[in-house]
């Protein structure tokens, strides 16, 4: 118990001192996870929309793949990305293993099915006749999709929250493809694991508080947009 209290005190000390390493790790976490969420949205939003609005023969199969992807364990993603980016792997020539880019790739694979799957379910919750009504009012296909996204704003922002939450908090894939290298690929979650394994609970708690704070602030921002006028 004493360890925990000491840890919390030390954590606040580290936080308020603005330890340069802690700041660097925090910024890298935000950068990597923010980029992964953005890419996931850019890919997932159109794919989820396509699957929700267009009927084609293998549609159910692809929806099942996306739904399975939503439950992908990060360590499995880490393993697959490692195999591909390993020096002798198919993409080894790109020299991405143990770089922040490798972490972004792994996190995109985790968050992208979530963005696509939740977009699909968000749009399927709307009245299907709304699409016909919008086209009947003279909307172009793009105007129709944009209006549907606006109508499904609440669940779509929930999808964004879920996607960001899943990548900022994952550790397995980041550890495996990033290597937790000091000054290069150490992010908040991998740093917490390392500090804990060394018995440096104060640092681990400080980093955990920052991680929770980031998650809270990002979700607060998104929730305030989501709940506007509700």
């Amino acid at each position, binding site marked *: 118990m004493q360890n925990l209290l000491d840890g919390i005190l030390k954590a606040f000390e580290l936080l308020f001192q603005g330890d340069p390493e802690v700041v660097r790790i925090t910024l890298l976490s935000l950068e990597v996870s923010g980029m992964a969420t953005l890419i996931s949205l850019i890919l997932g939003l159109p794919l989820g929309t396509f699957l929700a609005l267009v009927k084609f023969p293998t549609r159910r199969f692809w929806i099942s793949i996306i739904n399975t992807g939503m439950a992908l364990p990060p360590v499995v993603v880490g393993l697959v990305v490692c195999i591909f980016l390993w020096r002798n792997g198919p993409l080894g020539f790109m020299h991405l293993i143990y770089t922040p880019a490798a972490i972004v790739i792994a996190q995109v694979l985790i968050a992208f099915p979530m963005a696509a799957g939740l977009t699909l379910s968000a749009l399927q919750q709307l*009245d299907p*006749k*709304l699409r*016909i*009504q*919008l*086209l*009947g*009012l*003279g*909307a*172009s296909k793009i*105007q129709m999709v944009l*209006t549907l996204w*606006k*109508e499904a*704003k609440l669940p779509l922002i929930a999808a964004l929250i879920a996607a960001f939450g899943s990548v900022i908090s994952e550790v397995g894939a980041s550890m495996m493809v990033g290597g937790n290298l000091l000054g290069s690929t150490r992010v908040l979650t991998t740093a917490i694991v390392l500090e804990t394994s060394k018995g440096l609970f104060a640092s681990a708690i400080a980093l955990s508080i920052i991680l929770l704070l980031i998650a809270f602030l990002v979700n607060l921002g998104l929730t305030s947009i989501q709940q506007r*006028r509700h």
Partner: protein
Amino acid sequence: MTTLLELHNIIVQAGKITILNVPELAVNKGEVLVLLGPNGAGKSTLLQVAAGLIKPISGSVLFSTYKKLSDLNFRRKVSTVFQSPLLLNDTIEKNIASGLKFRGLHNEEINQRVQFWMEQLHILPIAKRHAKILSGGEAQRVSLARAFCLETELILMDEPFSALDNPTRQGLLDDLRNIFTRTNQTCIYVTHDLEEALSIGDRVAVLLNGKIHQLSQTQEVFSHPSTPEVAAFMGVDNIIPGSVFGLENNMLQIQADHAIFEAVGNIAIGTQVYICLRPEDITLFNDNQEIKPSSARNHVSCQITQIINQGPFMRVQLQSGFSLTALVTSRSVKEMELEVGKTVLAVFKASAIHLISSGKIRT
């Protein structure tokens, strides 16, 4: 009469089943054409084909004044109102403006048109209200304003008032009729309600099982249905098959089962016909009651099999070798002491009978 929209050889299939087969349909400028039919007849499908929202497997939909239009430009020549208002999660004003914004109009013009149509449909005082808290009638007024403010040459309405209670529906129908009269707006109006079709339509197309069975002036469809199926849908409860056996001075004699009917018309002797008689055109008399001389030439002795209460009226089912249905006031039923099993005389005029020729001649 100038044609505004023409549909040629339209066929729509669901899987391998043909759900719509319309060889020709023309909508005239300034008219309200009602597509009338029961549920599942293909009315809404036909409307969506006319709106460019469903692509038929064959056939074409053309505006007479425009040679070739892209899909988007075609859709922007029409506006649609559906049974469900399908309003966006926004204020009334913004909902009404949505179609105009899709067309990229200037804000000034959008505001002007939105204000005008909100006033026309009596929703100006609630302009800032959120669409999700409106009553059914208010929401449908918003939906109408949203369509009218586009000022398209053609408006398509798919059972817009069928989900509303009767007083609200009547209020909206009155307003809609006034707008149509004032603006000379062309409209295709889908309904399954005969009363609505009568009150709003200039012409009526009766759609049954994906095919147009009759297309005529509204009153003509009601008074002279062209097939037994149309007659049945039009509320003609009595459709009795018979055969013409006499013709004198435009007065036909028709044999149906054991009874002989007299009807006005000129059909060749031997022709198989359907005798169509509205239940409200039948007067019942007690068997022993003295009947004053009148122009009613047809007298059929029947037995009452069922009496169904319909509020101010009673539907009296009769049997005389064939079935007959008469509509009698509740007061008359009481005064005449009508009851199941009683024998009565069904009396009706020769002019009340509408004959549909089956086209077959009895040899």
